[in-house]
């Protein structure tokens, strides 16, 4: 365990996000923190006050309304859904969604209890730490941006993955029926993605890049194969996989992957990206967005 915790990861990401944006912290109308883990000072889980208050204070977002959203690994995209809604109705101009996931410690606890591949704690072994933040703001008329966001909770499967503080160790434990959750996630994603594409008036071939939640590389490739088979088309590029390098960074996976694709120069202005949330609940969300010049420039190429 290093010096980081959920709050430091979130604050670091928020500061970096602001530095790369064209706005100041005082211009943020809202800060929504979406972490599953809320660890501060080691493995002390924070229940209240809202962690978003601490993030807003740390970055100087003195005018921001603050609250936390908890929606498992769909947290950041849920926050994005909320901000998109608030901006579209004219309630705010811009807001930040932020998350700090200091979650790899669940793997340390799981390692003491996993004895075979049927263990329900196996999924904890692939978790990774990350902080991520994004700013959503009103785009000038006619400019690209968020085309569609939709979420469905398929609650018949709400008990397939449960995480809570450990009784006998510091930190938490997570219990997942991994095979079942992958099976239903793949089956249910196809019709919900099709519905999202229909509403946006596009086909899967019109999507340049798909970023799914990062549970395992094998599950992502198998899932995309089944989804493209069901929808009768494929996006321009293969689905983005980052889990092999960073692990499953929980609510931050989509933002981490999106930034990596931008930095690697694999995404350009005008590219259409589909972010697909698959999270305990079972939460299935689709965000369709078209990248603008600023999103690309702010992350540039690493070379």
């Amino acid at each position, binding site marked *: 365990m290093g010096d980081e915790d959920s709050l430091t990861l979130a604050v670091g990401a928020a500061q970096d996000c602001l530095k790369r944006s064209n706005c100041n912290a005082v211009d943020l109308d809202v800060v929504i923190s979406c972490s599953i883990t809320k660890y501060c000072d080691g493995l002390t889980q924070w229940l*209240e006050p809202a962690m978003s*208050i601490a993030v807003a204070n740390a970055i100087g977002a003195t005018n921001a309304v*603050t609250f936390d959203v908890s929606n498992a690994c769909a947290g950041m995209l849920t926050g994005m859904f909320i901000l998109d809604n608030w901006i579209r*109705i004219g*309630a705010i101009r811009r807001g930040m969604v932020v998350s700090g996931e200091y979650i790899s410690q669940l793997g340390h606890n799981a390692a003491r209890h996993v004895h075979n591949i049927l263990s329900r704690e196996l999924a904890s072994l692939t978790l990774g730490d990350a902080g991520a933040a994004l700013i959503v703001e009103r785009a000038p008329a006619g400019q690209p941006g968020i085309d569609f966001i939709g979420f469905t*909770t398929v609650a018949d499967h709400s008990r397939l993955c449960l995480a809570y503080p450990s009784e006998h*160790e*510091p930190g938490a434990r997570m219990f997942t029926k991994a095979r079942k959750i992958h099976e239903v996630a793949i089956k249910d994603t196809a019709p*919900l993605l099709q519905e999202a594409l229909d509403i946006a008036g596009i086909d899967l071939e019109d999507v340049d890049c798909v970023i799914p939640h990062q549970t395992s590389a094998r599950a992502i490739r198998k899932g995309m194969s089944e989804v493209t088979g069901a929808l009768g088309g494929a996006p321009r590029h293969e689905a983005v996989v980052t889990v092999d390098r960073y692990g499953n960074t929980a609510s931050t996976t989509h933002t981490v992957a999106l930034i990596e694709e931008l930095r690697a120069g694999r995404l350009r202005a005008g590219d259409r990206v589909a972010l697909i949330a698959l999270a*305990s609940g079972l939460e299935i969300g689709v965000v369709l967005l078209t990248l603008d010049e600023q999103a690309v420039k702010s992350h540039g190429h690493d070379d």
Partner: protein
Amino acid sequence: MGTTIEEIRVVQAGPHSHHDALWLADAAGKECLESAGVLPTDVDLLINAGLYRDRILGEPALASLVQEDIGINPEDPHPGGHGSFSFDVANGACGALTALQLADRFLQAGTIRKALIVSSDADPGHRLASSFPFRPAGGAVLCVHDTTRRGLLGHVHWTTVTDERHAWRATVGSDGGHNRLHIEMGPTFCDDAGVAAAKVAAEALAAGGLTPDDLAVVVAAPAYPTFVRSFTSHSDIDPERVITSGDERLHTVSLVAALDYAHANGLLTRNGIALLVCAGSGITAGAALYRS
């Protein structure tokens, strides 16, 4: 046009029962829908604002468990089906007002037609809390969009006053080899929360072009008498117009219970304007105007 509260329900655990927060949220949600004559399948959005649940479950959102238990379109997507969405918000004792604001804006956008807000707190069990300070209770509010002049008026106004002295904190941390829930409230919390609540109340009234005399009732949470005294002494609001749940041991359910009390006692009079005001850890305080 605004978001109106179609039904409110509060459920309290009996003195000898050991109902957990999920059971309380389920019960309040079910009773609320039944009383309103609304089918679970008609609910588009479910938001849970409660904080203290069995085991301090971190994921999934408790709302998804409530959604399954109540039967709010939990099944796999199918032709002709109607999906629903659920998630949790956490904003201390102000969570219910945050949830009301979120529901209001999704309703305004036409994204949804009916939203159910639930909130509950109970001892998390499993030896997490040696003494749990809040009364186990669940609350539910059904919200719809209204095309008349009723409902929430304008924005919800918020303020946050951060100061270590307030020290309302709840954490789960290792203690003697076991995780334990620690809840502490600083000695000046109620006084300072009252000041913060008075500030947002004044902002809400000013934004609505109203004075305290225009209010039929002020629905306040939490119910600590010291908080209410501080709130009224820092505002021009007549203490006689302020109602609370009357139970200072209610936490995230406190505002819902105060609304329930106001509704049940005819204090949300036709065309009367209510001020909803709450304060919690942070210190965060929020206020909104509501026309009955």
